[in-house]
């Protein structure tokens, strides 16, 4: 009998600033260390945008995000306008670059326009999350206290 490997989901929140009152600056912002994601196979990855939205904007989970007090810190979730300034880079367990400067908005699970399908880009790689980072490509935008939310879909 075919046994399906269950896909697990892990939300990862990354803060893209150094100090709570700082504006966003040029450079790399590393992901936190999440041991449960290390050396698992990442099969899907999505960016969850902040800002006012309808529940139907989300595919999974169908919970709205508050714009403040994420992880106990004051801040806002990056909306699409902010996220267009970021790319994300992933390294594998051997520290080789596998996804290099992948635009964050390209990972958004919903595309503009009515009746467009919601999809999560399929991936197939293993990584050590603490060595991966988000790069600010356009640091002239006056955004402060910004959080980026990602959903990782993975197999054990």
């Amino acid at each position: 009998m075919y046994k399906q490997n269950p896909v697990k989901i892990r939300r990862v929140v990354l803060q893209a600033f150094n100090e709570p009152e700082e504006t966003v600056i040029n450079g790399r912002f590393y992901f936190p260390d999440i041991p449960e994601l290390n050396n698992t196979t990442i099969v899907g990855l999505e960016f969850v945008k902040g800002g006012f939205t309808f529940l139907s904007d989300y595919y999974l989970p169908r919970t709205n995000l508050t714009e403040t007090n994420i992880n106990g810190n004051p801040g806002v979730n990056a909306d699409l306008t902010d996220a267009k300034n970021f790319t994300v880079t992933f390294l594998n367990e051997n520290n080789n670059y596998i996804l290099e400067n992948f635009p964050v908005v390209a990972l958004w699970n919903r595309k503009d326009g009515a009746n467009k399908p919601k999809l999560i880009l399929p991936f197939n790689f293993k990584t050590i999350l603490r060595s991966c980072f988000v790069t600010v490509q356009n640091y002239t935008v006056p955004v402060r206290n910004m959080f980026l939310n990602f959903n990782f879909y993975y197999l054990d």
Partner: protein
Amino acid sequence: MKPIVKSYLVEVNLGSTVPGVGSNLLFQDYPQLRDVYLMSAVVYDTNTLTTSPAGKTVITATGGITLTLMDRFNQEIIRSYPSVDLNPYYNAGFYRDLRPFPLQLTKSFITIQSIVGLSANESFVMNVFYITEKEYKAIKNV
């Protein structure tokens, strides 16, 4: 869509003046993309990314640009492909699956078919989804 195994964001800068219609602009050499097999190519405009990795403004509209991709044997596997058709933003988020071929990026180029919407010093950005030769040999008979 096949899963994305590896990707690399490459760019072509238009230069200090907007190239004329019919100009071919070659991709530069990215050492990481030597001896790789192309799985898919995705093009972005400012709806997805504002600034390229080189710090240049991304092209607002890629409607006047076509893409030609060469393989290792100097064959034009993809010839004058409309770049908008490779932008997931206009394709409900989907990207095209290609039959993998050995990409030769340094001989691949974009062609300016129309200068409408283009400005000097902007960059054309393309995300290359690829696998290594070793990975290709492992899957080619699947």
